[in-house]
């Protein structure tokens, strides 16, 4: 599972498989796993931000003819 510390290998493999990545390429998957663990950890400050009442910076505008 994804934790405060990072992501365990089982969760990584499950998500990688769902994304369509080739789990058979073990050396590449090891490299990717290490990178993803670092990434998840580096994104932690985002979880701690107070965003109460803030809408995302994305909006849909219907096309005008």
């Amino acid at each position, binding site marked *: 599972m994804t934790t405060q510390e990072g992501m365990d290998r089982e969760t*990584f493999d499950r998500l990688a498989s769902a994304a369509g990545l080739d789990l058979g390429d073990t050396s590449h998957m090891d*490299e*990717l796993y290490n990178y993803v663990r670092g990434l*998840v950890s*580096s994104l932690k400050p*985002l979880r701690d*931000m107070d*965003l109460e009442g803030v809408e*995302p*910076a994305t909006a849909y505008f219907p096309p005008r003819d």
Partner: protein
Amino acid sequence: MDNTEICYSSAGELASLIKSRQVSPREVVEAHLERIEATEPTLNSFITVMADQARAAARQCELAMSAGTYRGPLHGVPLGLKDLYYVRGVRNTSGSRIFDDFVPDYDCTVANRFRRAGAVLIGKLNLHQFAFGPTGENPDYGNMHNPWNVDLIPGGSSGGSGSAAAAGQCTITMGSDTGGSIRIPSALCGLAGLKPTYGRISRYGISVLAWSLDHAGPMCRTVEDCALVMNALAGYDPMDPASVNVPVPDFTEGLTGNVKGLRIGVPKEYFEVPVDTQVEQAVRKAIEQLGEMGAEVREVSMPMFHQTAPISTTILYSEATAYHRNLVLSKGAQYAAPVRVRIESGFFISGEQYLRAQRARALFTRKCRELFDEVDVLAGPMEPMTAHPIGATQVQINDVTVGSVPALTQYTRAFNLNGFPAITVPCGFSDDELPIGLQLAGKPFDESTVLRAAHAYEKATDWHKRRPPV
């Protein structure tokens, strides 16, 4: 005028020489092709040199002048485009051998507008693969090299644009900037490089890295040239969904050299992260000089500065993965290994995380806009250090070892997130003769003030007149 002088003339200088027929567009193009031939084996700035097309375009420029048509200050001026700007009939690789044979059948809006302005396209420039990296290293087309020291990176992703402009291979070049890719190589190569406001220059026909962060902009040897390019390119384009229909000023009008009364804020957070002592000294001295020239300088706090990296990374990786999904799943092994890993890691960012980052971005942008009620320009270092050796993944800043990628992007990403305009201008050299950049950022769609401040500083100094040893 000898060929070296032609190659180191600015667009503004070449314009008057061409208009007064002291030099012909063909002479200008031949001088640059000769310069490319002499320096290219060392620098590797280009993926495609378009010698025949450039000669033909120069002839057209001369014919037009003979017929009484002068298209303005870019008429006959040599231009290089990063090899992700589509040009009809010219291969566009985006820095990957996967697209070695891809030839677009239409022009990007930027190429169209340059053609209308009379600029002569001389070639397509090397880049960090898929524009996804800040160093200018590329295993497919070879690493780019910094003209100030060819063992060092020129910066990226627009590394070829940086080295080509700095070495006099092109008068003006274009980069793209998703997390700093115009400003990083401009700073490390000693150029003026402008990332305009998001929506100011059309991205139509430019390969995507991340839709909501991608900007197109000029990399030149003078601030005035950046303004001239803005005059040619800025303006609404219905083909780009992000293009904004706002009035376009004459960007050269404010280039008076006067900064009296300009309110300059210096974010204290810029100096709470690792920054090389020589860089800090040069930047603080430059800001002090702007103060002596009449600007009102004061320390400010930039809200959420220390959170910009995780916000930016989340959005960049999610969007890059969405764009590359099919290609990376089918041809991942053909990607450069570091680029592949970055793109595939986006599969592990959830929709909730992406939207959380977009909410944080909205908050950050609002707070930045409020900050600009108090100041006209924010000033600080463009990079925390000078160029580092090719291949290095860690760098030493004073007594701290940091990752190259986070260090190179620590001052750039904020202005991709909020979309505000930001320029780098040379403000000194290190003891080992490497350029240092000053970043000046402004309010949305107020490139004029950013250009005015940068131009005034440039005019008062001579850093931009130095030439690299290559």
